[in-house]
């Protein structure tokens, strides 16, 4: 397993970096951009929800916060389009992390179903704020971001590499957390929170730290997304489908594993993009997506990675 990993990881990275040079068609690189962006976003979601067992369905709060942050910064500083804008992506992430502190402080007082409902409620509050806080968001009229001076043929590539960088960071952080004692505490909370407390784990702090980390990484994704679109509107920045998509990806790949959300995003996002391109009208893609969610929960409750691992163990022990 270990040697396989030593080969697979650099190979995957080389493939990811080489991809836009081989498949340079903008239609393809657009799908590739979204796929890599969702690898990052799903890994971020999994870092908190997958490890701690707290199913947050309001990650779009941070996605939108990152998007509006970068829109405000570029507008107020009168920045012109270019690679330099990407320097603000980590800052947008930090801003989303700051937003995550009160949100987490509030939501994490509850558990299980209540927590899920609270995160959804907070998400709608933020969407409502985006419509109504005219001075910061310009309401439903939306905000424009500076237009990059790049040619159409390679336009997507810049965003692709920015998203890839975010994905690598999100995966690396997930991996580091999984191996650390901090990660062990999160997993202990997932299995039995009160018992973990009894053993001296400061569960409140641990949960909040992971929640904020998730917020930072998701906010970075939102900022890249906003710059890619060139504009920010409340329903795109604070999108309910985003909340579900990242969760579904992690579920499909394997909740609480490092590679699970990556595999889930690699499979689902191109599929979703294809569906939206094929069935633009009537929201058919959404219905198919919902059906897929049910199938995954019903037949692969553990996700792909744990199932394959078990199969591998069984074959080896024979």
């Amino acid at each position, binding site marked *: 397993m270990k040697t396989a990993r030593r080969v697979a990881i650099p190979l995957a990275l080389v493939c990811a970096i080489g991809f836009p040079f081989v498949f340079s068609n903008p239609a393809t690189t657009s799908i590739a951009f979204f796929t890599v962006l969702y690898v990052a976003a799903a890994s971020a979601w999994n870092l908190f929800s997958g490890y701690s067992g707290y199913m947050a369905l309001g990650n779009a709060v941070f996605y939108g916060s990152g998007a509006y942050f970068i829109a405000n910064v570029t507008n107020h500083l009168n920045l012109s389009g270019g690679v330099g804008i990407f320097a603000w992506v980590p800052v947008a992430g930090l801003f989303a992390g700051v937003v995550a502190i009160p949100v987490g402080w509030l939501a994490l007082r509850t558990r299980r179903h209540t927590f899920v409902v609270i995160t959804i409620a907070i998400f709608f509050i933020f969407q409502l704020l985006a419509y109504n806080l005219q001075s910061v968001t310009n309401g439903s009229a939306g905000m424009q971001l500076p237009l990059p001076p790049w040619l159409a043929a390679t336009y997507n590539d810049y965003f692709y590499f920015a998203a890839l960088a975010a994905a690598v960071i999100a995966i690396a952080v997930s991996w580091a957390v999984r191996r650390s*004692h901090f990660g*062990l*505490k999160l*997993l*202990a909370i*997932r*299995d*039995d929170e*009160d*018992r*973990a*407390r*009894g*053993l*001296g*784990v*400061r569960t409140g702090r641990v949960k909040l730290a992971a929640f904020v980390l998730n917020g930072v990484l998701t906010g970075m994704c939102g900022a890249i997304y906003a710059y890619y679109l060139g504009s920010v509107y409340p329903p795109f920045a604070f999108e309910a489908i985003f909340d579900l998509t990242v969760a579904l990806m992690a579920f499909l790949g394997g909740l609480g594993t490092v590679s699970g959300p990556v595999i889930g995003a690699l499979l689902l996002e191109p599929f979703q993009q294809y569906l939206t391109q094929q069935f633009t009208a009537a929201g058919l893609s959404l219905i198919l997506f919902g059906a897929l969610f049910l199938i995954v929960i019903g037949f692969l409750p553990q996700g792909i990675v744990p199932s394959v691992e078990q199969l591998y163990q069984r074959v080896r022990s024979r």
Partner: protein
Amino acid sequence: MTALLEVRGVSKSFGGLRAIDDCSFLVEEGSIAGLIGPNGSGKTTMFNVITGYERADAGSVLLGGQEVTNAPPGRIASLGIGRTFQLTRVFSRLTLMENLQVGRAGVPRARRGELYGEARCMDLLDFVGLADMARVPAGTLSYGQRKLVELAMVLAQDPRLVLLDEPAGGINPLLITQIGERIRELNQRGVTFLVVEHNMEFVMGLCDVVWVMERGTSIAHGEPEQVRNDPRVLDAYLGGALDEDGSESESEEAAR
């Protein structure tokens, strides 16, 4: 000998029910104390109050003379009281090794390396006879084995006092003997124990002192022989004489 744990006049109600009613007892340093009583007499609630899982309405709990009443569970753990649970509470999807290492958070920073090194955790698993299952998820173990894991988890924190909630309940006789041996061995190394147990044979054979609870308060205490023949205990707790072999019918009921 001095009292390591002292419970003074503790009361705890749930709604209209007085689960513990002005209960006092003490556990001497270096001893193995038993806490017995019929179902619903407040033993587990008492454990929950001592370890901070429930708040006492009145009274106080002292550890080595220091007031620890109503301190949160994590603080109780770091002060040196470890406990196991009647229905075991292991982290089912973590490996045994990981289960042990969770407790690392509950000891002072300076001692973490010493207590939670891979080698020491392995020794502890070996001590409870589960070393070869160190990389197995705890959820796959039997109930009795999980009790042993819990014991190892508690021992990892190097506690002064260990509270065991029915260590022999619902597990096979061979494991009961093994658990008893381990407790005695640890006691010789200086660990103090307070044991709630329905298996009278186990309690009488293991404990130096036995406290009897009934209706939320302690009604008698003494050496096992003494308690066994105390008319108040026979009358109030057992409602009759003990069986020949020292067990009573309730133990089977509790084991289920």
